[in-house]
């Protein structure tokens, strides 16, 4: 039995087999072989299998994320056919009489080192592709199942770290839990785990060399613990906990269709945050009353060029139609800072979190902004869409936005295109916006507090830096005071105020927020029913703000 503690990002329990995602760190053993031809034949088969796996991945990706993002798998296939690469492997097998695994790993390292040494950033990044294809061939030679096959059984994913794209690539149905050595509680992987109701532990000080795929493990998100190769007694305890968890889940299920209202009669609008069209399923499954934050930048990530107006229009329209008359609040583009996209050609910045991002890009490169607004106004005809603008610091910015909105409206009108100008609000996520709340409230239809950025700017703590987690206090009184100020500013001007950051899902603060007069909470879909239960158990009588 091996126990490790880590930081839990979703309080659930899971038990199952480990799938170790090793990014090339594993040492391939060098062995002497006698039959060179047989070894070459093994290599041949491993490569053929690799190519057909990549073809399958390519087809899957085309369906799920589109041609442009899927192209990487096509490139991987081509790399596997590269003459120099194949010649180098064959030469090693022949001249040194060594096993194919070692020849592939060694050649992969040599080629990827060559790319890593280039002075071009794009080409340096290709060294990872070469490692990737080499690992795939080695895995095939060793008979290891990758993440790609449909045959994968539901597993506990163990890795050094996971990038957002890796997390996205996985089949969500087959992930029991995430356990990583690195990562921060605010990383995208953590956010994704919360959204998918998947137990996840990060910052786990485990030695990956002692862990193998196929080991049984228990991930206990409640105690922040992972146990590898548990004994029978521990397994039994875990199974009981899983049973309790299931019962709790069923209890929450019974809250579906119920109103989110305190015993004292105060109604809260309980919405969900989503990052892609496919997440709408989670929203409906968890019975959220609307979408309080649709992160539109996911339409821009993981591709080579800007999404067209039609692509955006279709995505917004699909969500709006699926949600029927429920509110769908779409946040305009929030690229920059930790979300970088190559084709935006954003300059490197010393301090990207405080740099050229979000509304600052939109108000500078207005053509990008106008395309998105046109798509939004057209989609607004099909449902209950609201628009929200991120990273606002001044009234002047809101006026500039209004000028762009007016231009777009004029163009649509002249072209005779069907459109609707929906309700428009702003994110309150800078201390400046909090302090200017009274003035901003007169200009917009609603406020939505983005607690992640508001906290990082107020406390001057970088949320991507996990060494600062010890200094980070999400319950800092300064933040709570700011939220109170925002709610007061909003109500004074007769508009509503909500919270769409991670803090909105913090059960320890829910009652406080309700008492402060917060009108709307938008949280991960998986938190919706838990919060509904908490709110229904409260006695708060603060009058419901008329909306």
């Amino acid at each position, binding site marked *: 039995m091996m126990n490790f503690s880590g930081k839990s990002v979703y309080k659930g329990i899971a038990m199952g087999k480990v799938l170790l995602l090793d990014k090339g760190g594993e040492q391939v053993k060098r062995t002497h072989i006698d039959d060179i031809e047989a070894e070459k034949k093994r290599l041949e088969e491993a490569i053929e299998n690799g190519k057909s796996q990549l073809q399958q991945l390519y087809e899957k990706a085309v369906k799920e994320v589109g041609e442009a993002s899927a*192209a*990487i798998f*096509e*490139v991987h296939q*081509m*790399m596997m*056919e*590269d*003459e*120099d*690469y194949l010649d180098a492997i064959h030469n090693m097998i022949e001249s040194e009489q060594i096993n194919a695994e070692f020849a592939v790993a060694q050649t992969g390292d040599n*080629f990827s080192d*060559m*790319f890593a040494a*280039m*002075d*071009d950033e*794009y*080409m340096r990044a*290709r060294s990872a*592709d*070469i490692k990737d294809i080499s690992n795939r061939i080695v895995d095939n030679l060793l008979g290891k199942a990758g993440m790609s096959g449909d045959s994968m059984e539901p597993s506990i994913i163990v890795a050094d770290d996971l990038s957002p794209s890796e997390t996205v690539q996985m089949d969500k149905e087959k992930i029991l839990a995430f356990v990583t050595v690195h990562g921060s509680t605010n990383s995208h992987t953590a956010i994704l785990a919360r959204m998918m109701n998947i137990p996840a532990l990060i910052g786990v000080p485990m030695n990956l060399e002692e862990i193998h795929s196929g080991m049984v493990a228990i991930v206990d998100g409640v105690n922040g613990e992972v146990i590898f190769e548990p004994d029978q007694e521990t397994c039994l305890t875990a199974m009981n906990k899983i049973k309790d968890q299931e019962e709790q889940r069923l209890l929450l299920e019974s809250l579906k269709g119920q109103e989110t209202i305190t015993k004292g009669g105060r109604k809260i609008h309980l919405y969900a945050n989503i990052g892609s069209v496919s997440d709408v399923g989670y929203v409906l499954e968890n019975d959220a009353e609307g979408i309080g934050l649709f992160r539109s930048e996911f339409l821009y990530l993981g591709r080579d060029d800007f999404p067209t107006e039609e692509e955006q229009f279709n995505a917004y329209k699909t969500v709006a139609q699926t949600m029927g008359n429920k509110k769908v609040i779409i946040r305009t583009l929030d690229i920059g800072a930790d979300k970088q996209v190559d084709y935006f*050609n954003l300059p490197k910045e010393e301090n990207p979190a405080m740099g050229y991002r979000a509304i600052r890009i939109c108000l500078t490169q207005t053509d990008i902004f106008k395309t998105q607004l046109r798509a939004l106004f057209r989609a607004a005809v099909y449902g209950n869409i609201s628009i929200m603008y991120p990273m606002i610091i001044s009234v002047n910015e809101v006026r500039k936005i209004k000028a762009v909105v007016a231009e777009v409206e004029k163009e649509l009108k002249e072209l005779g295109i069907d459109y609707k100008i929906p309700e428009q609000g702003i994110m309150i996520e800078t201390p400046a916006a909090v302090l200017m709340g009274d003035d901003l409230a007169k200009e917009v239809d609603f406020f939505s507090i983005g607690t992640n950025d508001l906290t990082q700017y107020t406390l001057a703590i970088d949320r991507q830096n996990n060494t600062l987690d010890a200094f980070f206090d999400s319950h800092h009184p300064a933040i709570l005071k700011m939220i109170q100020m925002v709610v007061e500013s909003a109500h004074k001007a007769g508009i509503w105020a909500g919270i769409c950051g991670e803090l909105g899902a913090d059960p320890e603060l829910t009652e406080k927020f309700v008492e402060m007069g917060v009108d709307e909470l938008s949280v991960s879909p998986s938190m919706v029913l838990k919060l509904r239960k908490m709110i229904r158990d409260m006695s708060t009588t603060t009058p419901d703000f008329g909306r």
Partner: protein
Amino acid sequence: MKSFDYVITDEVGIHARPAGLLVKEAKKYASKITIKKGEKGAEATKLMALMGLGVKKDDTVTVEVAGDDEDQAVEAIQAFFQQNF
């Protein structure tokens, strides 16, 4: 032997995907097609070598085509460069 010079206008230069397409195109011809950037050269049928040239925007490359079908090949490769790089 035929040859032509070409100035790369694509933002990221000869990057992975179009390089892969170039390999496919080059394999259609019997001629030996070489892409040269300064001292370095790579056969157009070798993806990693091509990428290893590190050809960037505004770089000038020389394309040399030698073989029985060099007339058709040089024409096709030139058109390919104009379309993709």
